[in-house]
């Protein structure tokens, strides 16, 4: 390096080096406390649709209406392990609707018909009440309105359905529109322990 450096160049190098070191230090500091699990989620103990004891309340549909995405990033999820596989599922059927000739309610709860009902195991050809049924939620149809969650809640159901945020579609907005609108503060980004 035979080239001579001007005073200005040297100062420039120094400033750049300092800034780079500062950025590096900042990155290192943040990297150590970074946590990839930091994301929006729904606290089922707070959500009015799933909170035990909140009986006779109206459904809160803000998770489906407030999200900035055309189809909300929130989905209803059925925890099969705790699903009672009922013949007449109150989250599938509108149980107060008129009974049809097959002995089942004629209307469904889901406004988008996103829940599939299917008899499982050995199937009794004569007595449909004698079967267990799986209730599977179609992720492409569900918009997280929470009606089924409310209907599945104890004591009417077993509370096997809850709302969850789908992180592959959630934009992770700092100002999440659902969180702003949630009346129960159930939509939050839990801080890592």
């Amino acid at each position, binding site marked *: 390096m035979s080239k001579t450096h001007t005073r200005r160049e040297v100062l420039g190098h120094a400033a750049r080096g300092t800034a780079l070191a500062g950025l590096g230090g900042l990155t290192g500091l943040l990297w150590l406390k970074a946590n990839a699990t930091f994301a929006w989620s729904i606290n089922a103990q707070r959500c009015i649709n799933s909170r035990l*004891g909140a*009986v*006779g309340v109206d459904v809160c549909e803000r998770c489906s209406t407030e999200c900035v995405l055309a189809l909300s990033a929130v989905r209803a999820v059925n925890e099969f392990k705790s699903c*009672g596989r*009922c*013949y*007449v*599922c*109150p989250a599938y059927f509108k*149980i*107060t*609707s*008129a*009974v049809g000739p097959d*002995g*089942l*309610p004629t209307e469904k709860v889901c406004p988008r018909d996103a829940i599939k009902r299917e008899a499982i195991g*050995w199937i*009794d050809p004569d007595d449909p*009440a*004698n*079967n*267990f049924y799986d209730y599977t939620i179609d992720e492409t149809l569900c918009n997280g309105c929470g009606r089924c969650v409310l209907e599945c809640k*104890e*004591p*009417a*159901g*077993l509370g096997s359905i809850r709302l969850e945020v789908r992180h592959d579609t959630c934009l992770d907005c700092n100002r999440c529109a659902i969180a702003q609108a949630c009346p129960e503060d159930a939509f939050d980004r839990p801080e890592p322990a």
Partner: protein
Amino acid sequence: MKYQPAHTIGGRGSAPDQFARALRGVALDGAGRLYAVGDSAVKVFDADDALARQWPTDRPGECVAVDRSGRVWVGEREQVEIFDSQGGLTDTWRDPGQLGLVTAIGFAGSDVFLADATARWVRRYDQGGRLLNNIGDRHRKGGFHIPNGVVDFAVDDEGILHVANPGMHRVERYSPDGTLLGRFGRFDGRDPEGFPGCCNPTNLTVDDQGRVIVSEKAGPRVKVYDPEGQLLEVVADDVFDPTAKNMDLVVDSRGRIFVADTATLEIRVFEPTGSEATA
């Protein structure tokens, strides 16, 4: 026959005649005394609803029954405790690996029936505690379908078992050897004749005329059916805490219905009104 809510016994609280955390089962003895279990205790109320005595149980009581000789049977998790009428423990039945959560007890002749909510069927024992047979175990669903978590049954004067099968919205009748004799009930969320929701009726009892009195959850309701399964009366549908479920009930010789409200921990008494009341 109409019913009206008469009064309540117990309630949530720490007084001796109240329940702190739970009220699970009620029963009557021949003298009309009311037995209630909940917290780990049996409480006995005499005819004027005053607490006559109470004694602790080994585990939280799930159900209670009084046999003809006045012994008090308390169903618990994996065991049954048998007390004399004064509360002295005379025996404890266990059937390791077999008997699970006992949610109802009944007697007929020399038989003792225990509802096992873990296995989801009713077990028939002799007086010595020997298992004779199971009732409902041949069900295609492997037992009674009980998303509500309890099996409840009642034995009528002829020794026939009436078992609630809430997941199928039915009341089923069995002979002591486990033969299905008949059934009634269907789903209906509007017509009170039917059983609403996912799983009703949750509990039932039978009176001396063979009428079946059932309780439902979500919303809590008590109804009376005749022996053929025709709805006679809706006893009450708006007095219970909306979160109450698995409300045990019992009927006395005067037709009064005692219902355990599992949310407020009160025993609600319903009295028949009108001329038929004395029948």
